[in-house]
């Protein structure tokens, strides 16, 4: 059976999920289990002047109350060690955990958390990105210069990290332009919103800790527990039951250490289950708000000669994982175009808001929305068709990326042609109405890779266990690993059992983050499977009296090439071996493309060269109710260069989900804050996800070109890329209908209405080059 003949999607966890019998973390109950509740800061910036937990301790049914005083004195976060598990002296966002309570019921735990007395000296809240950079702004972290940092962290006052991307002399190049178009774009923060709110169950047996948790990154969770509670890795086991979605929102700090510490004190298992409100305010994960100020100089023929930009990115109160945001966002603002000279500066700014962290394609949807809006505005200023303008400037094989990477085979142009042709064909069939338009946006996203391992076992009954450190968060990427192994071994994927959610048995891996599951674990699975296949061939060669290289493995049988009639079953071969067949693979991080030494970037976080970059084009068909500003998206046509598609149904599912999340970001999903940095719409009525009644039809094509440096069978990642381009496409269609640009994201009905009543055009300056 070849890979393409393997059933479209053998979703091993499917029956569990549709029957309701599968267990998610919140479904677990352990004997004697207590329930946790947190006391949050509520005050976004304040100095703790009194913290009295005695009222909670006095309550009947309370089994543990802990604060900063009860855990090791450790500052955490890998990049800037700027926080402690529980608030110490100063609170810096409303959802910061001040204390934790365990009690025999969730209701008592919540009541006890509420009974804790905390008084603050309220400090001025820093909530505006630009004001925070001013000399006179209060500081979010007064003693930041004492924090430990790792790597090349460039920071100052409220600047948590700064990156600058320079190529050529942008000022001089800009002066040679025929037309300079400049504009400002402001994106609100948004949220990942997995439908499962997070849950953690921690249990000690002696000095060994087991944590069941809804994390996307079990090994990262284990590291953080070990780091903050000063435990050896060997005594901590993290198990992830079924995981109800993540989208990055369940990476990073996940409250496992808090619950483990509570369980230690309570001397019984403790369970935490978040409400939706907590899911909004507490985690160190939200999609960062962003300001993009950009100017681009072009020639009349569409040649881009220079781009200059400043980006302000809202980091929130603490460093989650965002030090790479400025560099990555700057590269996105450079765009997938041949942009001549560049001068892009990006500041990641501390504020008294919830920390920002990697949510599905961090920084890209906002930066892409801004730059693709800008791209259409340039085309308008040149009186050029936006598709033609892109066609002339898109990067192609052999072109140079923003940091000097020379692209190998890439399919950006193919994506543009396929998606626009699909949308146009649909519009030819059903002509656009007077309030409708098509809008185009390009997108791109890196392919990340790290080292990974895999174990494989073939049992005497011919079934296989595949053990990896991958984590299934819904994408199906782990499920797809079965297809690779099945192909290597010549067996039905149904015979393969996946073991992937237990740090005690699996080799370490990056988990469900960075679209890496197939790329990393897939490489390891191939090698481990090949090891077993080689053993099968050796055993069969002996039995069939042929050379191992002539042995064909198919349908759980081995035969000699050209003589399929004489075959031997795998079960018999394993029996002959006298023991199960084992494969053990550890694959290294692939080599990234080299960068020219001449590239200059301040605050380089290693984003400069991308392994097998992914390109995409989305085209949205949009209708506008001009009187109210309400926008509906009826169709989205996409084309993705994500390398070889291993599992077509799973791939379509990733694109469709990413597109709908993009529609939400474009139109209805934006977090609102009060003046002190508290979220005002931390609930699903006022933070509006798209419903099935809103969902557009989505038409996807995959551009499968042979990409060097890609993963197994030429696959790249695909979980994040579909979330990049949709908002930009909607923005451009919307602007065509109303003749005005909406400069804030989400482009809510009211913002669309306002854009129609006030001119918000970009500044276009004609420069005399005669």
């Amino acid at each position, binding site marked *: 059976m070849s890979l393409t003949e393997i059933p479209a999607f053998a979703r091993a966890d499917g029956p569990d999920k549709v029957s309701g019998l599968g267990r998610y973390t919140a479904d677990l109950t352990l004997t004697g289990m207590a329930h946790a509740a947190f006391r949050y800061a509520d005050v976004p910036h304040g100095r703790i002047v009194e913290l009295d937990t005695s009222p909670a301790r006095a309550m009947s049914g309370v089994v543990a109350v802990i604060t900063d005083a009860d855990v090791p004195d450790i500052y955490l976060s890998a990049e800037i060690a700027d926080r402690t598990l529980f608030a110490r002296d100063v609170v810096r966002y409303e959802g910061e955990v001040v204390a934790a309570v365990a009690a025999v019921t969730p209701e008592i735990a919540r009541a006890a958390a509420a009974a804790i007395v905390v008084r603050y000296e309220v400090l001025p809240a820093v909530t505006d990105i630009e004001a925070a950079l001013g000399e006179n702004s209060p500081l979010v972290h007064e003693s930041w210069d004492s924090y430990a940092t790792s790597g090349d962290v460039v920071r100052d006052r409220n600047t948590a990290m700064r990156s600058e991307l320079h190529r050529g002399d942008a000022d001089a190049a800009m002066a040679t332009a025929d037309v300079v178009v400049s504009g400002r774009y402001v994106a609100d923060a948004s949220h990942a919103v997995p439908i499962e709110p997070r849950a953690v169950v921690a249990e000690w047996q002696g000095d060994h800790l087991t944590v069941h948790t809804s994390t996307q990154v079990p090994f990262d969770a284990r590291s953080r527990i070990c780091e903050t509670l000063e435990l050896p890795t060997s005594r901590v086991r993290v198990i992830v039951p079924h995981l109800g979605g993540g989208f990055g929102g369940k990476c990073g700090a996940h409250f496992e250490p808090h619950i483990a510490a509570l369980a230690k004190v309570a001397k019984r298992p403790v369970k935490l289950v978040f409400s939706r409100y907590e899911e909004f305010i507490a985690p160190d994960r939200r999609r960062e708000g962003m300001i993009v100020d950009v100017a681009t100089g072009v020639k009349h023929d569409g040649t881009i000669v220079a781009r200059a930009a400043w980006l302000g990115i809202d980091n929130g109160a603490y460093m989650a994982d965002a030090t790479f945001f400025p560099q990555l966002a700057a590269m996105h603002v450079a765009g997938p175009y041949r942009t001549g000279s560049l001068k892009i500066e990006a500041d990641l700014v501390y504020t008294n808001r919830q920390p920002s962290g990697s949510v599905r394609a961090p920084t890209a949807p906002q930066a892409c929305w801004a730059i693709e809006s800008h791209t259409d505005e340039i085309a308008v200023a040149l009186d050029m068709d936006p598709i033609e303008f892109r066609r002339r400037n898109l990067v192609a094989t052999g072109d140079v990326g923003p940091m000097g990477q020379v692209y190998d085979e890439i399919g950006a142009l193919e994506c543009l042609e396929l998606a626009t042709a699909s949308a146009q064909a649909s519009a030819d069939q059903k002509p656009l109405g007077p*309030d409708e338009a098509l809008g185009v946006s390009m997108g791109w996203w890196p392919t990340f890779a790290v080292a990974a391992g895999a174990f494989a076992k073939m049992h005497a009954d011919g079934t296989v266990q595949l053990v990896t450190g991958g984590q299934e968060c819904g994408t199906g990427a782990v499920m797809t690993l079965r297809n690779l192994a099945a192909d290597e071994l010549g067996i039905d994927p149904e015979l393969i059992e996946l073991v992937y959610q237990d740090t005690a048995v699996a080799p370490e891996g990056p988990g469900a983050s960075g679209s890496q599951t197939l790329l990393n674990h897939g490489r390891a699975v191939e090698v481990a499977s090949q090891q077993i296949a080689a053993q099968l061939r050796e055993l069969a060669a002996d039995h069939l009296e042929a050379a191992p290289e002539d042995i064909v493995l198919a349908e759980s049988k081995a035969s000699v090439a050209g003589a399929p009639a004489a075959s031997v079953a795998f079960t018999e071969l394993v029996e002959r071996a006298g023991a199960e067949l084992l494969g053990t693979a550890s694959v290294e991080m692939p080599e990234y493309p080299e960068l020219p030494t001449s590239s200059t970037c301040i605050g380089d976080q290693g984003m400069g060269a991308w392994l097998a970059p992914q390109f995409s084009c989305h085209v949205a068909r949009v209708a506008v*109710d001009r009187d*109210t500003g*309400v926008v509906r998206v009826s169709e989205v046509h996409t084309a993705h260069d994500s390398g070889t598609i291993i599992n077509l149904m799973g791939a379509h599912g990733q694109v469709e989900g990413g597109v709908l999340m993009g529609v939400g970001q474009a139109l209805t999903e934006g977090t*609102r804050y009060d003046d002190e940095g508290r979220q005002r719409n931390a609930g699903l009525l006022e933070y509006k996800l798209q419903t099935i*009644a*809103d969902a557009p039809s989505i038409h996807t094509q995959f551009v499968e070109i042979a990409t060097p440096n890609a993963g197994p069978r030429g696959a790249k990642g695909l979980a994040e890329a579909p979330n990049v381009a949709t908002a930009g496409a909607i923005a451009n269609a919307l602007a065509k209908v109303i003749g005005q640009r909406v400069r804030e994201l989400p482009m*809510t009905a009211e913002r669309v*209405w*306002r854009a129609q009543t006030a001119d918000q055009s970009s500044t276009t300056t004609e420069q005399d080059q005669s």
Partner: protein
Amino acid sequence: MTLTIATSVDQAIALLASGARPIAGGTDLVVGARQGKAPLPDQLVAIDRIAELAELTSTDSETRIGAGVTHARLMTDGLIIERHTAIADAAALVGSPATRNVGTLGGNVMNGSPAMDTGAPLIVMGAEAELRSADGTRRVTMGDLWTGPGQISARDDELCTSLVIPAGGPGSGSAYVRLEYRRAMEIAVVGAAAAVTLSDGVLTSIRVALTAVAPVIIEIGDLDNLIGGAPDRALHGAVAAAARDQATPISDLRATDEYRRHTIGVMAARAVDAAARRAAGEQIPVPVNRSLGIGAAQ
């Protein structure tokens, strides 16, 4: 706390007199308690199994909708769609299918929210609420019942048993439209109901009421000067202007006062347009929001 499942109006009234609060679908009460807005009352009486409250009856001159009739029934009932189309329009937009299955008209009315969808249709149709207590039965108009946001003039011992609505005459039509950011799971940002009567293409009556632009749902006053005219663009414009003039909206998470004032005019004009078209015999399926693509819905 306790919950008693009542099986008759008399039983429910007796429990209300002793301090219990009524619960039907619980969509307001239980959600409110979960969000910490107000704790659940100490004594509850479930009224969703009282057969009398689920009755929907009619005569030539009026329709009587039991307080326990659900939104799901209102949006599909032939008589309501025929006679009181705006109520069906509104019921079809409430929350989600699950909310519509348990949420009741009486629960809506007695919750007194200025954002309720069924309120404006009840006003423009001249509905009255029938309130029963140990002291007897009385009827109040919607305008007299709703006194402020979440405030009603009914006493705690009074149970709303039904809504009584005069049957519209020949040539009458009604519609409810609302502004919605999504096509489902919405709460009114603003909304408007209209009921009109046409005779030989000329307007002989018009009533328009507005949702979520004042502390209570309000009826637009001084529309009588429009009677005698045609249901044309000028009429829409005049209604929109009157709606904007008489609305006193606030700014909140969902919209600014300025945007509400603008869109209430749009919704009022659209409601009048749809109502007049229905009065002229055009079949516009319920809910008009989805049939006409209000908010570019198609």
